[in-house]
């Protein structure tokens, strides 16, 4: 086994420091922490910047983790934090649509449900927080994947199991669907996970415009759709609510 490469170890140490509590550091601070010459640290930072792993803050000149890296990290925003910040808007979406609401994040190529609001009809429903759903058979999963190109590129033929006859199992068809979703900003799934039920989802972005989660409504096809098409007003509700959470996270100014 060849020896370890020192400059990669140093780059890793820099990234680790930038992912720490302060999240934004200057060359001198990093050099001090790592006991390295400033020139060395600067060289590594420039390389990391070129590949998008770090970026320089325009105002302060300090460095922070870059968008490429944030896309790769599956849980940049703590799921518990996302639930807390999204609570009011998720409740509002359930009230407006009359359907149950879920918020999901990507977790090892599955959708992790981090928040669940019951359908507001006071019938018995069980809380699904913590459960995992397949990415390719849920609107949540599609909305999340549409904004994570590198994950889509990794999908292998035959890797998409079928749950109903409507499940999209063909990787090429799935990729082109994701492209359309990325374009229009919302995703739909009609009877692809369970017979007779549908879901509509839109991505949630943080202040760096990184997709940190997605929010959905789910219910019977006949309530959510006209034929196989999602009803326009439901798409609007979902888009508005997810945009409100994105605003809450600083993605869009009010």
């Amino acid at each position: 086994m060849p020896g370890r490469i020192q400059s990669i170890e140093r780059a890793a140490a820099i990234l680790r420091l930038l992912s720490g509590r302060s999240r934004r550091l200057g060359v001198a601070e990093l050099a001090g922490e790592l006991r390295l010459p400033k020139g060395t640290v600067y060289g590594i930072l420039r390389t990391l910047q070129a590949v998008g792993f770090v970026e320089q803050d325009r105002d302060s000149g300090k460095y922070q983790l870059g968008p490429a890296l944030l896309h790769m990290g599956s849980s940049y925003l703590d799921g518990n934090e996302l639930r807390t910040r999204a609570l009011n808007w998720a409740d509002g979406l359930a009230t407006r649509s009359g359907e149950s609401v879920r918020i999901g994040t990507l977790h090892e190529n599955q959708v992790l449900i981090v928040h669940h609001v019951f359908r507001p009809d006071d019938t018995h429903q069980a809380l699904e927080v913590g459960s995992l759903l397949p990415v390719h058979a849920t609107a949540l999963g599609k909305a999340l994947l549409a904004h994570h190109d590198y994950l889509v590129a990794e999908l292998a033929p035959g890797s998409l199991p079928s749950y109903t006859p409507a499940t999209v199992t063909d990787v090429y068809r799935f990729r082109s669907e994701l492209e359309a979703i990325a374009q229009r900003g919302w995703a739909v799934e009609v009877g692809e996970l369970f017979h007779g039920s549908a879901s509509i989802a839109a991505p949630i972005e943080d202040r760096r415009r990184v997709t940190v989660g997605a929010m959905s409504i789910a219910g019977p096809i006949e309530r959510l759709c006209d034929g196989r098409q999602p009803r326009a007003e439901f798409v609007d509700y979902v888009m508005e609510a997810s945009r409100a959470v994105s605003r809450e996270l600083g993605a869009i100014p009010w």
Partner: protein
Amino acid sequence: MGPGRLNWRYVASIDQGTASSRCFVFDDRARIVSVAQHEHRQHFPRPGWVEHDPEEIWRNVELVVRVALDKADLSPTDLCALGIANQRETTVLWDRRTGAPVHNAINWQDTRTDRLCREITREHGQEMFREKTGLPVSTYFSGPKIRWLLDHIPGLQERAEAGEVLFGTIDSWLIWNLTGGPGGGRHVTDVTNASRTLLMNLQALDWDPALLDAIGVPAAMLPEIRSSSEPYGEAGPPIAGVPVASALGDQHAALVGQTCFNPGDAKCTFGTGSFFVLNTGERPVTSSNGLLSTLAYKLGSAEPVYALEGSIAVTGALVQWFRDNLGLIGSAPEIETLALTVEDNGGCYFVPAFSGLFAPHWRSDARGVIAGLTGYINKGHLARAVLEATAWQTREVMEAMNTDYGRSLSALRVDGGMTPNNLLMQFLADVLDVPVMRPIVAETVSLGAAYTAGLAVGFWQGTDGLRKNWHRAAEWLPSMDTGARERGYRKWKKAVARTVDWVDDDE
């Protein structure tokens, strides 16, 4: 009827809390149309002292109202009324002529009146206070805080007697400023806020001369006591012309927001502290288990409705302390992530008696302990212990509630800033051994203030219609086995026993 009447689409409310001020705008189906929030500074000048700057709070309230309207592109003419819910007991004294506070507000958590309370108790006993106000003498309530300010600011006593200095809880401070301040501001409070001063007679709903005398508070500085739901006056900027039409302590507002309008209905709000409130109907119930007998609300000229309350001083505040003073987490929600790095509390129990113990113990000589520490305990276990402290304290209060009311609650309605914490809500269901339910508007404090303001001006017709807006948004079912629950509770009680008798008489 004002000319704006046809435009009435919305009602606004302010939730002036311990941690932050918020403004919400609701439509007639209780849906949130807009929200703005701003935190204010917590001042800790000495151990046990907690202060807020009343001017900062007023500025923040003006700000959040303006921002909430801007965000939804609304103007004051879109609003039928403004309601106010506020952190209770926190005491402001200000100059009637200039509007300037004479001192920082003394916060409800502040324990500086500890010795004063012991003196008052020595001289007058607890009985008179229990009987007339439903409260024990405690640092928690406003009366002693007023007395402390009068004793410590030179010349204040004379100015107060001359009516030059006014007292108010935060509701009064905000209404006075909203309705004109030094230029004719209304000096009023509502029955729920007044019921937390140790100065109001719970039956007469008026200031009681014997109580004023015992604590030494001049009547000239006190606001007029009104119902919780009636127009008190018209607001000036930033919402010129909108009637200020409700005021309630935040916990009472949450009871209304949860539509607990029937005797036997109860809720617990989990914020800085936690407050378990049970509607007891048109008569106060005396507690023999350390609960407070207090007002639920009074809607205009209708009969007053009373409540039993279990007040817990420190719950969310412990999470905040964990974040700010230990720095082990970057935000409050991260405590759940940290707690989930371990399976259980590792034998560690945290009793956050930072301001002594409130219900059901009422021990001002208690201070916090972390019990069961071993070399095995890491920060994940501490995070668990922090969250579990909230649940165990709630269990103590619920047991007192069941005994005093003579009926066991079969489920608990919850709300407040800690309810998004899933781990905590599950643990709560586990140790209470009843289902825990969150309503679809978690912001029940704001909603309750909006309901009462909307009722006062006819935006809503009555409480029955409001019940239709309550829906279950989440439910946690008990899943802990009895043995584990009882062992945990036994340890908790042992830890509590280790907090008392810590503060000495000569401190």
